[in-house]
């Protein structure tokens, strides 16, 4: 049976925990709003880029000389996995769902006899995956997007990937990230970046466009320029989505924590009052029985 003083201390400590979690929830909520707007604002560019790329890919279809980023290296032996996680914890299952998906993917590929290289983006993912797949890991990126992801940051990651691809260090690149659905739900998404999967509808839609579009300087030249850009854009988008998801996940987790702390405080307060009363009763009995004994 804890003493009254112990109970009082527990209550104070849970109260301050609740203050912290509710503050974190508030902060996450405001960051979420910002991250969500940023993710939405980035959509027009990605959409138009995709449309242009679809047209180009349609025009290049069946022609020789298409860049390797579109057609692949002709093999799929080495896979590069880029898990996008947060740098911080305390956001529920956000980071662990990504590492779980990455583990599954890596284990599956290894079982098929492929080689796997992991380039983590975000500190939490690196730490979680280091134990099992440390030997497959190459240096990743931490501390991106402290004040919201900017395009140059995503470009930095894209440049690394492009460079590795040019050196023939991998054949297929897949990014694993949390796609933002709402504050309470995020979807773990796997997206293949290299070779770039051409949107399926481009076959039909752009067969007509192919005839009419003029290309300046030429299809292949534009493609060679646009593909690395597109890689950066896709990464940028997945990072923005991931960041919005992170804030959403944190907000939900902290909301739950705040509620749990409240419940705990109530339970402790009841226990405290009961033991206080029990003590008073005990003292009264002692006094009365002492008086009676005389």
């Amino acid at each position, binding site marked *: 049976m804890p003493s009254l003083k112990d109970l009082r201390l527990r209550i104070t400590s849970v109260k301050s925990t609740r203050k912290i979690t509710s503050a974190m929830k508030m902060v996450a909520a405001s960051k979420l709003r910002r991250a969500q707007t940023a993710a939405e604002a*980035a959509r027009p560019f990605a959409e138009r880029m995709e449309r*242009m790329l679809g047209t180009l890919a349609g025009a290049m279809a069946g022609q020789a000389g298409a860049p390797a980023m579109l057609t692949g290296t002709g093999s799929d032996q080495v896979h590069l996995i880029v898990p996008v996680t947060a740098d911080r914890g305390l956001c529920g299952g956000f980071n662990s769902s990504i590492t779980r998906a990455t583990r599954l993917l890596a284990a599956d590929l290894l079982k098929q006899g492929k080689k796997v290289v992991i380039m983590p983006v975000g500190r939490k993912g690196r730490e979680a995956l280091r134990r099992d797949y440390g030997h497959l890991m190459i240096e990743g990126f931490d501390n991106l997007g402290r004040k919201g992801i900017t*395009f140059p940051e995503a470009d930095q990651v894209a*440049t690394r990937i492009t460079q590795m691809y040019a050196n023939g260090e991998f054949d297929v690149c897949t990014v694993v990230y949390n796609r933002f659905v709402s504050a309470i739900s995020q979807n773990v998404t796997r997206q293949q970046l290299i070779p770039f999967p051409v949107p399926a509808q481009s076959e039909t839609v752009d067969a007509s466009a192919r005839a009419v579009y003029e290309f300046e300087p030429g299809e292949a030249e534009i493609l060679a*320029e646009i593909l690395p850009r597109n890689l950066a854009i896709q990464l940028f988008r997945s990072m923005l989505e991931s960041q919005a998801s992170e804030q959403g996940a944190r907000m939900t987790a902290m909301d739950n924590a705040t509620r749990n702390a409240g419940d705990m405080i109530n339970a402790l307060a009841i226990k405290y009052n009961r033991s206080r009363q029990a003590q008073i009763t005990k003292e009264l009995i002692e006094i009365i029985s002492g008086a009676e004994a005389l």
Partner: protein
Amino acid sequence: MAEKIQFELVSPAKLLLSEPVEMVVVPGEDGDFGALPLHAPLISTVRPGVIDIHNDGKVTNRIFIAGGFAEVTGERVTVLAEEAFPLTELTSEIADERRAAADLAVTDAQTDLDRSRAARQVAIADAMVIALR
């Protein structure tokens, strides 16, 4: 002329501009081209330079862009730019700064990729200087 063409300028972070205009002059890779309504469909890479927006027969807005892509259809011009800002915000200090940074990048470049990136930066800085003239 009543006919207008929808001009869209998009950067990775957001949609910068979307308005009907009479004509836009875009600095294409193979030379500047003006896009009027009913222009033939065209996709082009864009070199660093200045986009001129024409309304009522004169230039109403000038925007500096650091390269990108343009898609032209009969009713729409879409420019995907990595970086874009109004020419009025461009000062010689900014251009000089970029120039210095670009020159530094050229001397520091180790790999082919670095070199091509640095060359790009130089091209952007040069275009800024030309745009200011």
